[in-house]
């Protein structure tokens, strides 16, 4: 069997729940064609101890958002996300290679 796949970039954003709508709006106007979100909990360890986000209560929720798009679009959106929200909000952006089957959709 021989299938053709197409290389795209998967951008993963781990961020505070309150940013969800803003991230979607930003993506929609930057050439991303879709997104997938789910709720997560998490934490980070640093010199001055451990910090956890357990998701209990409105202000403590974290989401993980995934967007599949062209590499160049991903880089641009990632940069904007970090510029706009990286200072004041908990937000992490990751990029990874993926292959898709129907390139027109991404």
């Amino acid at each position, binding site marked *: 069997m021989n299938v053709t796949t197409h290389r795209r970039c998967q951008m993963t954003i781990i961020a*505070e729940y*309150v940013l969800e709508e803003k991230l979607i709006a930003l993506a929609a106007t930057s050439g991303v064609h879709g997104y997938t979100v789910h709720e997560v909990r998490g934490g980070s360890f640093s010199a001055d101890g451990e910090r956890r986000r*357990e*998701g*209990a*209560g*409105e*202000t403590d929720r974290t989401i993980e958002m995934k967007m599949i798009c062209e590499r160049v679009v991903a880089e641009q959106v990632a940069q904007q996300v970090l510029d706009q*929200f990286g*200072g*004041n*909000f908990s937000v992490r952006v990751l990029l990874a290679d993926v292959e898709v089957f129907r390139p027109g959709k991404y």
Partner: protein
Amino acid sequence: MPIDPLVLTFALGVAARLARSDLRFPEPVYEALSVYLLLAIGLKGGVELSHQPLTHVALPALFAAFAGFALPFILFPVLRHVVGLARSDAASVAAHYGSVSVVTFAIATAYLQQRGIPAESFMPVLLALMEAPGIIAGVILARAGGTAGAPVFREVAANKGIVLLAGGIVIGWIVGSEGYAPLKPLFGDLFRGLLALYLLELGLVVGGRFADLRRAGLRLVTFSVITPLVMGTTGLGLGSWLLGLSAGGAILFGVLLASASYIAAPAAMRMAVPEANPALGISAALAVTFPFNVFINIPLLVLLGGSL
């Protein structure tokens, strides 16, 4: 004087959390309980309102909204210069204390009921009117009179707490006692029991917040004890002498001023003043002021109110 089971379920939650118990209360049920509590308080208030001329409420309502708005302006300089917070942090914490805690109000109401102390039936209206102004004042303080932005005000007005409280009041007012009757088994009879369950969960949350207090610093913790103490007695006095409320009403007004928002304010400030550290306000309001009000301040205000 019997100990209230509400206080005990809260304490059980705190203890379970500190003992690292695996007891957890699922988040969606917790959320649903808070929807229930808000709607139930609103409905009951609305039904009671429908029995009396609205004009009675006008003065207290106006004053309550004004007090909620004014409070952050009084607290801000203290937070800035005595507690030593940055401008945005001071504004954010001030907003938490300007706004109110619905659950603290509910506990105080239950406390009064248990002791047979009557209060004005329109108190839930004051509660609903006091959620937003303090938050708006906090935003203004953070922006130092700059472009405060209409979207923030719209968001605050559509916030869940206000929608449910105000919506419940309007529905209760429209349907009256007769329309409320079939809803009473849920929204009336179960209220205390479901509040007890909610407080069990809140205890678990609060128990997990104690660790944050070290980072908040001793000065903020002190602020979170003294503010409700001062504001509670001030509210009691103003309620009684200025607004002419009954002892019960004045106690509840004191509780409203003394309580700090841990749901509406944190969510609103996170978006409106993102540069503020969100852990400060919520830890102060939830891990210090809330238990202080429940265990000490409410009984104290009831004691003081009794001698009015």
